[in-house]
């Protein structure tokens, strides 16, 4: 049950602005102590909470177009918090927080069955096939607010929840109950040089993320912005990452449309 004054943190990513520089990925690695291997070229085995995909319209030059699509955890709400990974986790190691809308991951409780990885339609969950080995001296650079993960557990984007906890602690010390929009921002949002990522509370009409996404609470957060779409929205996962694009083929790439199917909202 959603609590009164509950927040629903979400993200809007403007794909027209994204240049595919990868700064969001680097910031995410640094902020969240994401492990890497000496040879991390096999992307089937590596871990990246924020992954930038490269899309193209499949047409030859000169009609060729491409687009970069950053993909963090979609923090699906599903129906009343029953997101795909939360429903299947046998040990309740992942949870949907009704107070924030964040899908959490409890590393010491995860026993690595990888069922959530099979359930996630976005491939955001990745497995620690090895124990993390940091280069000499790098232990000193790790973020003390984020626990490092051991071999054999699944991990994923947490919307930098440690920053939310720090912001709440700060607000408490200052005698406030609520935090401001800019007090809690994810690392990728702050690192994006193009300003393509907007983060905030989707329930708060004053937040930029709400004004961009225009979520419709009567239709499970479906956007009223004709340029917005969510990935695989028709699965009913009710994700909280909204993408903006002025290009029709990009919006259609977000879901499995049939060729003869209706066009997306912006052109209908």
């Amino acid at each position: 049950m959603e609590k009164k004054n509950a927040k629903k943190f979400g993200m809007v990513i403007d794909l027209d602005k994204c240049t595919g520089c990868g700064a969001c990925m680097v910031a995410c690695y640094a902020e969240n102590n994401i492990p890497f291997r000496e040879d991390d070229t096999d992307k089937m085995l590596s871990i990246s909470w924020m992954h930038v995909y490269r899309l193209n319209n499949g047409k030859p030059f000169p009609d060729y177009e491409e687009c970069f699509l950053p993909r963090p955890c979609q923090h699906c709400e599903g129906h009343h918090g029953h997101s795909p990974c939360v429903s299947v986790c046998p040990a309740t190691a992942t949870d949907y927080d009704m107070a924030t809308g964040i899908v959490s991951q409890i590393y010491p409780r995860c026993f690595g069955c990888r069922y959530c990885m099979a359930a996630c339609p976005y491939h955001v969950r990745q497995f620690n096939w090895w124990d993390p080995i940091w280069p000499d001296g790098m232990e000193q650079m790790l973020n003390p607010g984020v626990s490092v993960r051991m071999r054999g557990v699944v991990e994923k984007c947490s919307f930098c929840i440690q920053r939310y906890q720090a912001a709440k602690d700060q607000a408490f010390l200052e005698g406030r109950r609520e935090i401001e929009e800019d007090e809690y921002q994810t690392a990728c949002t702050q690192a994006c040089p193009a300003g393509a990522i907007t983060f905030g509370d989707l329930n708060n009409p004053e937040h930029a993320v709400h004004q961009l996404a225009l979520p419709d609470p009567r239709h499970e957060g479906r956007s009223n912005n004709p340029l917005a779409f969510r990935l695989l929205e028709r699965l009913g996962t009710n994700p909280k990452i909204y993408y903006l694009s002025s290009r029709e083929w990009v919006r259609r790439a977000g879901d499995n449309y049939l060729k003869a199917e209706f066009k997306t909202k912006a052109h209908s």
Partner: protein
Amino acid sequence: MDSALIPKGVKRCPIWQFALWIGANGAVLAWGGFAMLLVYIKGLNQTNMNNAYGFALWIWADLAVIALGGGAFFTGFLRYIVGKDELKSIINYAVLIGFICYSSALMILGFDIGQPLRGWFIFWHANVHSMLTEVAFCLTCYFGVLTIEYIPMVLENRKLDKIPFFHNLSHNMHEIMAVFAATGVFSVLFSSRIPGRGARRSVRAALWLPGRGTGLALDIFSVHLVRCRLRTVLYHFYYQNNRNHHTQEIGQRQCHRSSGQNIRLDDIFLYYCQDH
């Protein structure tokens, strides 16, 4: 010294034959043991699984042996509840097969997880919405019931049977074995119904049909297969050494069979021992 443990009329095979079979089976077991140690010591990175293919082919084997093991309960149901006496000879084998299958399935699950020492979290922090929780609970329950069912077979050992406590226990357990069979078949038939909704129906059908529909047939087939393999080995020991006696016995049993009496597993065995 061990003559009391060898059935009458059966002789030891040559040492080279014994070593060959033990060696072949031992090699497979050693291979599995080595793989298990690798996974435990070095982790699941040894399996060639990756983030895109997070499950390996052994899950297929895992589900297959669960389906096969389900036949134990259905056989028990038909034998003890429905009263199909024809299954009298196969029930012990069915229980044994079920025991091996469910213990194997649990063992496979045990080394298929990234943090085996936390495996008990599935019971401690159980998520009732998860089908894997359901599978783990069901497998454990089935394994427990089969263990109880299997205990009398162990206690029937002639040495153990001399101990009064084990003797009384095994004989009394036989009397209430119907309760365990009913418990097993009830849990198998209805466990999926407890939280079953939505996608789980298809999974239930996928497990239920082979498990209950063909489990019995698979059990019979397995016993049949084992007997076939044994036939060539035992032929010399069992038949040739007792030719006259068993020829008479086969003749008598064939008469019984043609007169509509129940076919026993021994009949099948003796049938295979005949010259065709």
